[in-house]
């Protein structure tokens, strides 16, 4: 049946969108600001409680600011820290949208990183424009493959993905330990478990080292931008993305509409894994230059927070990732200048999420500045 292009008025009316109201504005702007403010305040209280004097607290927050956005190198550090968080976070977000609670980013990052580094040094001969993409691809594929294990298990036997991904994480650590002992991977002449280095022509080029060799920000940022756009397109434009969201929101309806649940689960997991694997490759090719035990450094778990904080929306994930990256970079500065342990950042991160994820809570604390009544 064809649809006639000239729509009658009734139909036209149905196509009018409600303009974003004040509620959206509050949720997207006001609440986060309050959240950060409150979190920092509570962070300060924590320091007071552990008898840190006010001066130090002041200095540490100044350091936090400087270390995150205060200077070029600070920004560079922030971006460097944010990149893997966003990449892995995007993967997790896709999973969440498809109704999969995938805790496995950590393991997928490790696998991706290993694959990237192995490809890197084994094909060192290839020219940069071929080798780098190849390494990234290897990382993505490895991550995808590793994640698919959980996907296939769920689709085939209904094994709960939370369990299988947790276990796959633990397994991946050991796997990396083992791989790093293999002669063809371990750096020659080294006793400790450390892989051969990524050849220069496989590294993600540093963007600002012509300004100052210590600026670490690297090509990964473009990777991130691309990934965000891709994830957005996938979720909200593509057919498969529609299927992800449908079977995430109501698996039964999706099945009745002729979508293949099992297939979708596997594809969703694989895509999530690919992005996490990319995060791993990004770390290896852009920051570490090689792999060693546990080089994922818990990014996979922070990414869960990032994805949730970003409400599983690609753009949200981007901002959440930048926020976390900033806190991390700033935290390091904080430790140097004020001697306050970086662990404080963990506390602040947690608090920020609380207040953003529970707007009602913020509204309860700050009744003013919010429209009365409405609470959905």
């Amino acid at each position, binding site marked *: 049946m064809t649809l006639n292009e000239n729509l009658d008025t009734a139909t036209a009316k149905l196509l009018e969108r409600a303009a974003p109201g004040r509620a959206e504005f509050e949720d997207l702007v006001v609440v986060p600001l309050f959240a950060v403010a409150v979190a920092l305040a509570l962070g300060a209280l*924590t320091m007071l409680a*552990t008898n*840190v004097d006010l001066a130090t607290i002041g200095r540490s927050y100044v350091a936090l600011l400087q270390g995150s956005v205060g200077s070029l190198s600070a920004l560079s550090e922030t971006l460097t820290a944010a990149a893997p968080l966003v990449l892995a976070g995007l993967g997790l977000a896709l999973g969440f949208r498809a109704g999969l*609670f995938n*805790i496995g980013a950590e393991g997928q990052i490790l696998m991706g990183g290993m694959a990237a580094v192995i490809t890197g040094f084994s094909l060192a001969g290839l020219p940069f424009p071929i080798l780098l993409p190849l390494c990234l691809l290897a990382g993505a594929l490895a991550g995808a493959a590793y994640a698919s294990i959980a996907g296939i*298990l769920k689709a*085939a*036997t*209904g*094994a*709960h993905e*939370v*369990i*299988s991904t*947790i*276990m*796959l*994480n*633990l*397994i991946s650590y*050991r*796997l990396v*330990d*083992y791989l790093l*002992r293999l002669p063809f991977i371990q750096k020659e002449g080294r006793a400790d478990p450390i892989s051969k280095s990524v050849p220069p022509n496989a590294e993600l080029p540093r963007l600002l080292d012509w300004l100052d060799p210590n600026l670490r920000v690297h090509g990964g940022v473009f990777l991130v931008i691309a990934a965000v756009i891709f994830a957005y397109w996938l979720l909200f434009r593509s057919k498969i993305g529609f299927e992800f969201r449908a079977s995430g929101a109501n698996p039964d309806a999706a099945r009745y509409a002729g979508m293949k649940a099992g297939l979708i689960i596997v594809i969703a997991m694989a895509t999530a894994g690919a992005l996490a694997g990319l995060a791993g490759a990004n770390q290896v090719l852009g920051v570490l230059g090689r792999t060693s035990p546990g080089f994922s450094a818990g990014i996979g778990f922070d990414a*869960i*927070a990032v994805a*949730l*904080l970003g409400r599983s929306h690609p753009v949200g994930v981007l901002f959440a990732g930048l926020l976390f990256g900033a806190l991390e970079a700033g935290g390091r500065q904080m430790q140097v200048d004020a001697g*306050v*342990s970086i*662990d*404080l*950042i*963990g*506390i*602040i*991160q*947690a*608090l920020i*999420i*609380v207040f953003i*994820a*529970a707007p*009602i*809570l913020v509204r*309860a604390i700050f009744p003013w500045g919010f429209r009365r009544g409405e609470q959905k």
Partner: protein
Amino acid sequence: MTTSPDVSVMPQTAVATAWRRRSRIYGIVLIGLALLVAFIFGPDVDGDATFRLSRPKDPFALPNLVVPAAPFTYIAAALLAFLGAREFLRGGGRWSSIALGVGLAIAVVALLVWATAGKSFSLTGMLQATMVRAVPIALGGLAGVLCERVGVVNIAIEGMLLAGAFTGALVGSLLGGWMGLLTAVIIGGAFGFMLAALVVTYRMDQIIAGVVINLFVLGLTSYVSSQVFAEYRSLNDAPVFRAFKIPILSDIPVIGPMLFNQNIFVYGALILVAIATYYLFYTRNGLRARAVGEHPRAADTLGINVYRTRYIHVTLGGMVAGFGGAWFTLGSVGRFDENMTGGRGYIGLAAMIFGRWHPVGALLAALVFGFADSLQQKLALLQTPIPSEFLAMFPYIATIVVVAGLIGRARAPAADGKPYIKE
């Protein structure tokens, strides 16, 4: 009362097709195991596998359990083959899962015998270790059960364990073990209450709330331990609850040491599991709690206060987790270290699902894990050609296999993870 027809009337062809689908696969798996045992283990086993039931210095020594390795291996293989064949040809129905379970068990024992052939190790010790390693996981799982039975997903078990461990060490160092234990339980409860407040009152997404609490506790404990414990070491030197024998019972060979020569955490875990089971399935409040987890609105229409029920049980869950956390410090090593729970909370979560949201199930799941864990330690000692990393993976792989193979689609409480909005 169901109006559906009874099985007898259905045409054989139809039944068969349906049942065989599953049992075929199981059959193949079992036969695969049989081949593995026969041809991988079989060839190079010789001598006897000796399982010691007592230590060199034990007061009265029990005779060792000696298994002639080669014959045993082949018998095991035969058994597996038989099970497999039976499953493959005309298995099905309820027995399939059991057959697979038995099969896996046999395979594991065969592996043990193969590794031990010509050597010996302490079976008693292994079982005791199994129990000990299972404790925090079982308690974590139990905490999860209490929360999810009222419809609140608790990802925060890890954080609650960590909080318990920390408090146990700190207060234990200052005021002694018992006070440490008590406060650990209270703090655990406090975090439970916090979780309840976030998800029930402030309708925060339950998973996010859980993740947040984990982040928060990890941050706080690490912060304090590096900021404070580093300087004041005396704040991180708690007494450890020692194992004590339960008269008579502890003298039962093998089982005795495993169950009745342990510290209060082991006894506590066992007792708590028993109590929880009784409470959830045989008491009025248990029934109400489960109703809230399955169909909150129905419970509400019958005058059961959904919110209060959730608050209470999530807090209780937190207290159990706090107790489990104290085990790491007061029950084991007497001092706190950053992130010392190392993901046990998540494994507890797995144990809960794997144990089908049942306290006893969670305990058994935890034991399976503990067993796999102590088994890999023994195998490492017995110097099997397997690299230690792979041995270390064993517990995790085992968990995945069991969850995928035996459990399949376990059924969570219907309202699990869903906030309840009254109007």
